[in-house]
């Protein structure tokens, strides 16, 4: 691979109203962007689709709590070894460390747990995930590597 190829990247930016009915569009655009890279397997695109849905749902809910009508930005950076997705909202933010984990699936209390699965799912499905939350909003960064990278190491 030449240096030029290694540095080749492309950005896709989506600017959406922070409303639930736009979640499907966010998933479709990110999945379509990932599908441009032929070495991504469908399974990894599904992982990314789900992780993006979780991040964007959190963003929509952060705005809902405020009752504001701000917008959400989704930035996909496509490189030949990975896709990086950033979901940026301007909601109230939250402290990731304070968000407790759900009980184990075998724990009877698990049935009472209707929420809180989003963050563990994002961590499980993306190769890298990072949440940066401030009073001014939250940025979630998700990275999924192509097989080329995984095999090469």
């Amino acid at each position, binding site marked *: 691979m030449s240096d030029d190829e290694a540095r080749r990247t492309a950005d896709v930016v989506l600017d959406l109203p922070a409303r639930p009915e736009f979640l499907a569009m966010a998933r479709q655009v990110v999945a379509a962007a990932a599908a441009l890279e032929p070495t991504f397997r469908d399974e990894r695109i599904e992982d990314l689709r789900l992780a993006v*849905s979780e991040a964007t*749902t959190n963003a929509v809910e952060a705005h809902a709590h405020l009752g504001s009508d701000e917008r959400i930005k989704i930035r996909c950076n496509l490189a030949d070894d990975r896709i990086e997705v950033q979901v940026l909202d301007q909601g109230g933010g939250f402290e990731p460390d304070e968000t407790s984990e759900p009980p184990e699936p075998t724990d009877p209390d698990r049935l009472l*747990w*209707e929420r809180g699965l989003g963050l*563990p*799912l994002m961590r499980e499905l993306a190769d890298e995930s990072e949440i940066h939350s401030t009073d001014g909003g939250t940025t979630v960064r998700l990275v999924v590597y192509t097989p080329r990278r995984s095999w090469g190491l």
Partner: protein
Amino acid sequence: VLVDVLVTSRDGWVVIAPVGDLDLAAAPQVRGEAVRQVTDGNSHLVLDLSGVEFVDSTGLGVVVAAAKRARSAGGDVRLCGVSGPVAKVFEVVGLERIFEVFDDVAAAVAG
């Protein structure tokens, strides 16, 4: 309407079949239908997910909420039609261990 929810009954079970993505946009409608059925005295529910190609944690929350209400009313929720990406999500969060999952509605109703 973001998701179609088909409701039928079969051998004493009420079958709720959402068609579309089961996410934050669809959750209130599907959850509402399940709650309405239990409130009306139908606490034996089959959630037929054969028309669902995508589910996220909010959608899973609907399944859990339906099961909670049905079980507290003396009934149960049985799942069927779980395949592809939806099955993968169930597996990742371990939900397949606390729900009986059947191939189709007939199998779910037969138990």
